[in-house]
């Protein structure tokens, strides 16, 4: 290891940072024969950058040389930037050195496409293989599945990696055609399908034969760039829903576009990153995955975009006031989870606590529930406190006046664009 590695690390970490996935969870890989590393299934964020994002994995590109010219990508062929490439051994040494010092949970390795997809994929696989077999490494490995790589290589990758991902990047085929003329939608979708079947197949087989090797035990994920193109939230969440339902995705990531190009097909440099919209999309995503919401309840043809001012659960509740008030002392858990201001864990706490006594507003406040928001949707037997004459617009105003948004400064900035 020498000073040149330091420079490469700077270049290839910088180029990899727009990939937002940092999860190191969902994989149980036990330490065997006194090897290195052990994953218990929960992620650990070892550090947080000044932008507030977590650093869990050593996230780097093997190289930022690329034969493609995707407009949204900082490593595109036509971009005049410093190029670099790691050797296989350098990536292995960095991963082991960082892991042993408890800096990271593992490696997230992606790459620009040099020469051809198989040539690139083969090197990613070789690194993972070396870590697992030569270093007895049981930390987390996330590999990018390079679109266009052979199925044999994808299969081998799955045997060493905890998670594989293919980024769809653009929410629709038209946008992909516009910004990434070298890429086809089908090149992205077909490896996803292949991986889905392999993951399910290995899981099934493991049930009957425990010796079946692990195959990407943390599943697959993908990423969509938000705000670079014209798609509305209905299209974006519809696509995400397709990935969850049809591809068994563990996660879909939404990456607010950071302007990096003077290309006139894209938002100009200096345009603010759509952070609020990104945040609302993640909230909607959580509602779909953990709160039992259907995507059609969150966005629809009448309201194709999420409200930036209020969270999507509150938005749903205001459109469906006929479902309220809910009596938290008797309602089902699933219904309590739908009350604005009451989160997943709080709903479970309520259901546990009401077995001991009838809960009153004071109890909810003590239990850390956002009572100022939830009170419009709750009913208590005595005293009956429902403010039933308020319209949804009035409730919205009350709540907005009461809360101080953490994004207040960004709001003025972002809204002035429209």
């Amino acid at each position, binding site marked *: *290891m020498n000073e040149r*590695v*330091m420079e490469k*690390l*700077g270049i290839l*970490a*910088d180029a*990899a*940072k*727009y990939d937002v996935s940092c999860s190191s969870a969902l994989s149980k890989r*036990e*330490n065997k024969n*006194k*090897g*290195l*590393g*052990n994953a*218990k299934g929960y992620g*650990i*964020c*070892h*550090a*947080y*950058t*000044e*932008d*507030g*994002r*977590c*650093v869990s994995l*050593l*996230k780097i590109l093997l190289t930022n040389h690329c034969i493609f010219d995707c407009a949204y990508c900082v490593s595109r062929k036509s971009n005049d930037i410093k190029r670099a490439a790691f050797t296989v051994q350098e990536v292995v040494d*960095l991963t082991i*050195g*960082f892991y*042993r*010092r*408890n*800096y990271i949970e593992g490696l997230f390795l992606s790459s620009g496409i040099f020469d051809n997809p198989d040539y690139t994929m083969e090197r990613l696989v070789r690194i993972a293989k070396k870590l697992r077999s030569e270093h*007895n490494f049981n930390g987390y490995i996330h590999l990018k599945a390079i679109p266009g790589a052979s199925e044999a290589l994808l299969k081998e990758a799955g045997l060493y990696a905890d998670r594989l991902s293919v980024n769809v990047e653009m929410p629709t085929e038209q946008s992909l055609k516009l910004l990434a003329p070298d890429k086809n939608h089908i090149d992205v979708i077909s490896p996803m399908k292949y991986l889905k079947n392999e993951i399910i197949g290995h899981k099934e087989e493991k049930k009957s034969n425990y010796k079946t090797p692990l195959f990407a035990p943390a599943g697959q994920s993908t990423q969509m760039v938000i705000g670079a193109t014209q798609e509305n939230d209905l299209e974006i969440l519809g696509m995400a829903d397709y990935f969850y339902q049809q591809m068994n995705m563990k996660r879909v990531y939404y990456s*607010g576009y*950071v*302007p990096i190009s003077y290309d006139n097909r894209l938002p100009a440099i200096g345009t*603010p*990153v759509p*952070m609020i919209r990104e945040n609302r999309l993640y909230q909607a995503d959580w509602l779909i995955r953990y709160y039992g919401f259907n995507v059609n309840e969150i966005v629809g043809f009448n309201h194709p975009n999420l409200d930036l001012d209020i969270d999507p659960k509150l938005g749903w509740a205001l459109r469906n006031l006929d479902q309220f008030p809910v009596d938290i002392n008797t309602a089902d858990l699933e219904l309590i989870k739908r009350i604005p201001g009451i989160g997943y864990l709080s709903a479970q*706490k309520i259901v*546990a*606590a009401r*077995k*001991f*006594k009838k*809960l009153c507003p004071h*109890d909810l406040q*003590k*239990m850390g529930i956002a009572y100022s928001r939830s009170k419009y949707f709750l009913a208590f037997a005595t005293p009956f406190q429902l403010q039933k004459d308020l319209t949804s617009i009035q409730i919205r105003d009350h709540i907005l006046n009461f809360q101080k948004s*953490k994004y207040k400064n960004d709001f003025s900035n972002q809204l002035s664009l429209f």
Partner: protein
Amino acid sequence: MTEVIYDGTYEGWLTAVFDVYEYKLADIVFTKNETSGALLFATSHLVATDISKAKRVLDGLKQHLSPEGLADMYKAFLSELPQIEETMFQFARHVFSNSKNVEGDYSNNAVWDLRKATRLTRKESHRMEAFVRFKLTKDQLYYAIIEPDCDVLPLIESHFKNRYADQRWLIYDGKRKYGIYYDLENVSTVELQFDMKATSFKHSTEICDAEEDFFQNLWRRYFNSVNIESRKNMKLHIQHMPKRYWKHLIEKIPNVNDYK
């Protein structure tokens, strides 16, 4: 008011609970041996830690609590919050006075206060699993210093033992002046006076492995390269990495060479 003086250990506290019931002590406050100075209270009771008494209290709790609930009490104890002993005692009384498990009785003050303390310890032990930064010495020992608010070493021991099974390591709690040391076979508790100045640059070049400084710089370079300037959000950054931890986080300590 009766002052119940115990030795500051968990077993000591459990014995104290036994004594409170045995001698029907009312209106009590707990005091640790070391902190008990002049007698502030009219009456006091000195607890002699007794493993068999402690076990009887623990067995009693076991009958009413889930294994997690029992472990949570120990975690609350490790929080070292002021008056944590009283909170735990209120909780224990609530447990003993009910025939069914009260862990979910969140609208009860004792249950809620205990939960808060438990969560504090759990959160910090998770943080320490993340924020330990090992440095490699010339004799191939990976060592780290931490100064957590809660006494988390007993909780993070198995995590590090399972993960770093093939390297010798030492994690030292600079606040409580003890550490845990893994010798490739077992983890043991070690009491030592660690020179906290050992973190200084001059000292670290004397004791550290030749590549250690380079790796620290690689980590700093990596940490700074993955930041996206146009998304800067220092409030969130500090919320996740509170400043009180920075002095042991390599990426938050500027490289000394930068000032040469």
